[in-house]
């Protein structure tokens, strides 16, 4: 019987050129697959790591494991409203943000004016989605680094928001709530009380999270000065959201290119400052998310105070009769800048819907961020970009 070692040495073959790497493997390098099934890749993503011991020489991402042909489906829908449940399923963690973007894009294309009440409720729901998405991002990031407990605390806080969502539209994760021209349901009667109670409950929890995780010395050692993304590189890679703001660029669509009623609220844009490391490292991106949650609570409190009355279904058109035209609208989702390019040719079904997904674009910057990192750092960097594979692959 052949010994296992000789068996294995005959088994290894070196391809001429590794696609994506562009050259042959050197003697001391090894290709290891952080494969589609892995606890830390936040979904089905395959990262092919070319490593030299523990140091990563190159990262080659392989996508498409969750590709569900969203854009092709849109072309076969019988009207524009039917796209909304599909749009939900892209970034399934913060589904309301996807619907928001699509609804705003369609309303711009068809020149529909929505009532004020609808705008305010949409903003409240979008900010709740932001809180929910950042809670998952922070919780799973802690888990990747090795701290298992903050994840459970974030899930506990998330349950409160999901309860509010369930009372409003009946669903916890995928809502089909924001329709073109309005909303599917009005909010329940005790909505304002519940929202205010949540805001009061949630603020001290952010502080608890900071004490437990953000200022923990070991966490800072793992994330500071790791995965530094300089601002020029971030802009060239069209990064957006916390990834761009973590690099020090103060750019938020809610303030710089406002849509809906965001210009009526008073909130700040947190930006990475390099407080414990370099500007643009993982800790900065993580901290931007934590502080954004706080700002979201501010926005929600202001919005719920100003909420006007009205009918949320008043402007939902019975039949959408579109004209020819096209529009590109971008909104600020928790992951970054989500863009919808909708082309209409006059028929009731969309001609082309292209989604510019922020996670897709942010992920393309991963190889640039991880030169010279170690394997444990790749996990940290990937967690700080905060990808959801549903949106990367659509």
């Amino acid at each position, binding site marked *: 019987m052949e010994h296992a070692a000789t068996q294995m040495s005959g088994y290894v073959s070196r391809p001429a050129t590794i696609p*994506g790497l562009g050259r042959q493997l050197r003697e001391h390098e090894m290709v290891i697959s952080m494969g589609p099934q892995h606890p830390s890749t936040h979904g089905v993503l395959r990262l092919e790591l070319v490593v030299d011991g523990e140091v990563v020489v190159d990262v080659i991402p392989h*996508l*498409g494991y969750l590709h569900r*042909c969203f854009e*092709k489906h849109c072309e076969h829908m019988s009207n524009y409203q039917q796209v909304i449940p599909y749009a939900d399923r892209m970034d399934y963690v913060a589904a309301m943000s996807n619907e928001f973007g699509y609804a705003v894009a369609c309303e711009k294309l068809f020149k529909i004016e929505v009532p004020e009440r609808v705008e305010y409720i949409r903003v409240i729901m979008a900010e709740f989605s932001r809180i929910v998405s950042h809670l998952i991002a922070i919780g799973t990031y802690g888990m990747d680094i090795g701290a298992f407990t903050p994840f459970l605390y974030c899930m506990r806080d998330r349950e409160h928001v999901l309860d509010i969502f369930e009372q409003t539209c009946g669903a916890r994760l995928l809502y089909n709530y924001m329709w073109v021209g309005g909303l599917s349901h009005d909010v329940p009667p005790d909505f304002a009380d519940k929202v205010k109670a949540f805001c009061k409950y949630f603020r001290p929890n952010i502080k608890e999270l900071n004490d437990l995780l953000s200022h923990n010395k070991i966490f800072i050692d793992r994330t500071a000065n790791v995965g530094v993304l300089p601002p020029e590189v971030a802009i*060239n890679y069209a990064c957006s959201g916390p990834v761009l703001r973590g690099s020090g660029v103060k750019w938020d669509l809610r303030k710089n290119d406002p849509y809906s009623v965001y210009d009526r609220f008073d909130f700040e844009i947190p930006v990475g400052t390099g407080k414990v490391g370099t500007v643009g490292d993982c800790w900065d991106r993580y901290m931007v998310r934590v502080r954004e949650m706080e700002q979201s609570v501010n926005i929600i409190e202001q919005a719920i105070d100003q909420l006007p009355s009205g009918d949320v279904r008043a402007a939902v058109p019975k039949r959408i009769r579109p004209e020819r035209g096209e529009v*590109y609208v971008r909104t600020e989702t928790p992951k970054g800048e989500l*863009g919808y390019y909708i082309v209409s040719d006059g028929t009731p079904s969309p001609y*082309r819907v292209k989604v510019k997904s922020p996670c897709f674009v942010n992920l393309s910057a991963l190889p640039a961020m991880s030169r010279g990192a170690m394997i444990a750092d790749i996990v940290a960097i990937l967690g700080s970009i905060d990808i959801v594979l549903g949106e990367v692959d*659509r």
Partner: protein
Amino acid sequence: MIPQEMYDILRAEFDDAVLGAQLEGVLDPELTVSPERVQDVARFLRDEQNLQFDTLMCLTGMDYTGGRLGVVYHLASIKWGHKIVLKTELTAEQPHCRSVESVWKTANWHEREAFDMFGIIFDGHPDLRRILNPYDWEGYPLRKDYRVPEFYNGMRVPY
């Protein structure tokens, strides 16, 4: 910077490359550019002092039925806050377009997706492979005349 000024600056620099423009009645100014010169136009748009389109927001492949393809570029400027749309027109027999990957690194993956979905070949792209579909998939799914293949690697494709 208003659309007319942007158009004048571009026209002055690239008279032969700019094939058409739509400045009124649209949300952002649209310019049609020839596919071979799109990289030069892009670099000019990025570097010119008053334009500084430093972000490629979105790069979309298009299939205008009748064997005509196209690429649509949505550019934005973080510095100045204005936006512009570039369009190129290609044919299914000659689906070649110059790559803008050297101008904005984000185009790398966007162009791979346009190649994957429409079969548009970007000259000068360092690594043009499929990105969302499996690497050995046949056909270009988002084309209007696409038919799902019956077999893939010996397995029957359902539906």
